């Protein structure tokens, strides 16, 4: 079954086209990474799916119900985490979760049980009696995730759930999402490729309000497999590395070379030739690699390639 579907979704703000005919199909039970650069239309899509915004044109369905037609029915089955979660700061997290449970009509005993469970899951048991107003950003994010789960939703809509957090907070939130695998469909928007690569099993790439591609993560990586070699040198050999990269860029078997610190990433056209030619080129440039590795393509490579193609087409 399809958990989220959109057909030719358009959203226009004045002269700005936020969504430009977005088509989307998210299968039930997946952790779907909705990936795109800032301003691509990710938040607008989620706002339309939740009923907070209205499409200028096109239709969307959530769990089989048309958005805007039967919003209360959708609301009962959906959990939502906005990009910047907002709370009643005068409440404690226990009160907030209890209030959320009341909105969903949970009976008192179940509400108490869910509140306890979710406070534990969010690691907020010790802060259960503190006012939310005094919480750190990480605590607020965890509470926001907890409130989105109070109704055991069939679909969880997460808008940039980890992008504002420090590395530790990000890890916690991504582990949290990973634990939901098999329990519900997760639709997660983000501009952080590593997060999608880590937890999502299906990926949709959006750029300028249009879906560039949508496929299972592994299929996408396989389809757009870009042979690449990484070469790492000592920190005191950076200038030699730069000269070497300039010299090999012109070779016909090289597609591109990028350098990040002491690591050069060479995208190649012909991996067999590259393997032998690269090894020959190091002594000529006075380089002794500390690491030489034929690497798997990353989602970042796929993303940059697809978005790059899209931009070039425009």
């Amino acid at each position: 079954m399809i958990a989220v579907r959109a057909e030719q979704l358009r959203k226009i703000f004045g002269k700005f086209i936020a969504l430009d005919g977005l088509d989307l199909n998210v299968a039930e039970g997946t952790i779907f990474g909705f990936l795109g650069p800032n301003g691509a239309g990710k938040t607008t899509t989620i706002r339309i799916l939740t009923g907070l915004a209205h499409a200028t044109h096109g239709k969307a369905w959530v769990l089989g119900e048309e958005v805007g037609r039967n919003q209360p029915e959708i609301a009962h089955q959906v959990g939502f985490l906005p990009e910047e979660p907002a709370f009643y700061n005068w409440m404690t997290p226990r009160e907030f979760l209890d209030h959320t449970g009341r909105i969903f009509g949970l009976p008192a005993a179940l509400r108490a049980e869910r509140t306890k469970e979710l406070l534990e899951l969010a690691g907020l048991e010790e802060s259960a009696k503190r006012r939310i107003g005094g919480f750190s950003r990480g605590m607020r994010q965890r509470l926001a995730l907890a409130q989105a789960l109070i109704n055991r939703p069939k679909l969880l809509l997460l808008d940039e759930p980890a992008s504002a957090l420090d590395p530790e907070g990000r890890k916690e939130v991504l582990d949290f999402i990973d634990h939901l695998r098999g329990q519900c469909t997760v639709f997660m928007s983000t501009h952080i490729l590593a997060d999608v690569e880590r937890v999502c099993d299906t990926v949709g790439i959006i750029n300028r309000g249009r879906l560039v591609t949508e496929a299972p993560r592994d299929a996408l990586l396989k389809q757009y497999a870009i042979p690449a070699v990484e070469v790492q040198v000592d920190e005191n050999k950076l200038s030699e590395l730069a000269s070497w990269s300039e010299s090999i860029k012109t070779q016909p078997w090289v597609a591109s070379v990028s350098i990040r610190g002491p690591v050069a990433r060479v995208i190649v056209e012909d991996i067999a030739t590259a393997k032998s030619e690269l090894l020959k080129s190091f002594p000529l440039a006075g380089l002794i690699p500390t690491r030489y590795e034929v690497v798997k393509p990353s989602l970042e490579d796929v993303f940059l390639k697809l978005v790059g193609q899209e931009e070039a087409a425009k």
Partner: protein
Amino acid sequence: MSMWVEFRKEWMYLVRTYRFLVSVIVLVFFGLASPFLAKFLPEIITSAATGGLNIQIPPATVVDAISQYVKNIEQFGILLAWIFAMGAVAQEKDRGTAAMMLVKPMPRGTFLLAKFISLALVLACSVILAGIAGYYYTYLLFEAMDILRWLALNGLLLVYLLVVLAITLFCSTLTKSQVAAGGIALGIMIIPGQVMVLLKWGKSLPGELLTWGARLMRGNTSPSWIAFGVSIALVIVPLLAAWLVFRRQEL
């Protein structure tokens, strides 16, 4: 069910943020102070006169105490209703709590109505307590008043304040800025009101309710039902308009 849930949250908010307490303290203070000021102000002014200046002020009567009470509760009641209502929706939209809660199965009409009912209840409790305080002090300093008429006067005062509350709440749904909401509400209440007065339609406006209440206390029972009907309409229509605006509003 959802109405009770939302009302409960609003009531908690009004109590926790001391809005309920402030409202009660302010109106009860003026309920007590009004007969006191009416009684002793002439004496204070007379005794303060120096340099052979002879000021003759007639002794205060119960009518002075009542008009002082109506004036004070009206002014401070309007101020409280305006301040409480102008941010009620605007602030939730601005902070993002409205979006966070309204994606859940909470009808937007319920969200609005719960705000109106809880704020109306705060004003009602404050007016009732101010009425009890005012009655008691007026009785101590002047004489006993007709309780039923005193109840009617306070009821009319409350209806008058509910008009301010409903109009300001409507304005709060129009914008994300509570200052803008307050400004629009003032504009709506002052400008058309003044035009209506210039057109000699003042007797049909909510302000007439206070005159009616004061008349009642003086023993004149001639009613102002048109003003009462207009006031009720000015409570219902802004609430309906608020719902119509808010139900399709993007958050």
